[in-house]
């Protein structure tokens, strides 16, 4: 588990051997090392204002719809992440599983909040090629499950 500072908060994330992490511009970016020619599996983590988590999630989805080609929501489900990441009881905002196209590639992504203190939320976006999704799922789950944020 490696510690990073995002917007003045400490965020800890497991970084598997095959992944590299970089914190810049208020975002933590974990990327898996693969061939340069292919879109890399990436997990982006950021703090953002989210006094209303549902509205914040809708806003993020709207951004993806506008920016990505053929962005399609495919599935919505709750993800049981670390309970201590929530200052109050974890609100029932779901994670959204969606797909889109990037050039010649079909990518799938997951978007949701992994924590919140009532004012800010820890936003998580994972992206990978459909062909990699099944084999990478355990690694993505392990990173998301291990995310920690200090609100104090």
């Amino acid at each position, binding site marked *: 588990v490696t510690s990073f500072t995002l917007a003045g908060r400490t965020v800890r994330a497991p970084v598997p051997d095959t992944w590299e992490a970089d914190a810049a511009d208020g975002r933590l970016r974990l990327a898996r090392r693969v061939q340069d020619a292919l879109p890399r599996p990436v997990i982006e983590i950021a703090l953002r204002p989210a006094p209303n988590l549902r509205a914040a999630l809708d806003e993020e989805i709207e951004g993806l719809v506008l920016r990505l080609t053929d962005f399609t929501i495919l599935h919505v489900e709750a993800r049981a992440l670390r309970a201590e990441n929530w200052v109050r009881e974890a609100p029932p905002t779901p994670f959204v599983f969606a797909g889109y196209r990037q050039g010649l590639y079909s990518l799938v992504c997951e978007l949701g909040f992994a924590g919140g203190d009532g004012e800010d939320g820890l936003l998580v976006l994972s992206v990978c090629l459909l*062909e*990699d*999704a099944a084999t990478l799922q355990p690694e993505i789950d392990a990173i998301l499950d291990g995310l920690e944020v200090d609100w104090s």
Partner: protein
Amino acid sequence: MTARRLEIRPDGGDDLDAGTLSPAAWERWNAEAVWCSLQDLSTHRRELRLAIVPPHAVVSDGEERLLLAATSAPAVFWAASGLYTTVPSGNHEVDAVALAAAVTAWLDGEEPEAAPRAVHARLGRGDELMREEILLDLDGGWLSGRRYAIEDEPMVTLDDFSMKDLLLDLSALLALSAIPD
């Protein structure tokens, strides 16, 4: 590579890139393909099908066939499918016995007497069927009916359907097919 129409004609050749295949060549190509099929059982049995043999893929909607790059075809397929799922799909007050009977009928190629809108979902490679289920549309949420054999006794189970789960199975099959036999 952009999407192009693919025609299957008796005078077609053996080269997929030419955009026209003979029925025999089409059959040979499909024998190697990883494929996923969604057949609407309620509306004229229309079938949306994705078949992949890298570097090519074919997305079929009935008799219309589009030839695409293998990497870009899944996005076309899932966008065209219109399937969107949540878990749980809702607290449906379902008549499980009646739905199981409908699933059994559909899996046996028969028409149930009364049933919700349904989709026959299948996933496989060549002749090998890896996954088969009947998706039942209940107020916008989808249930999945699958048949198992327990000690030779066929049983139907009904669960929430997850589009994510189906795509992860497709992903696993594509990853496996990338490894030479």
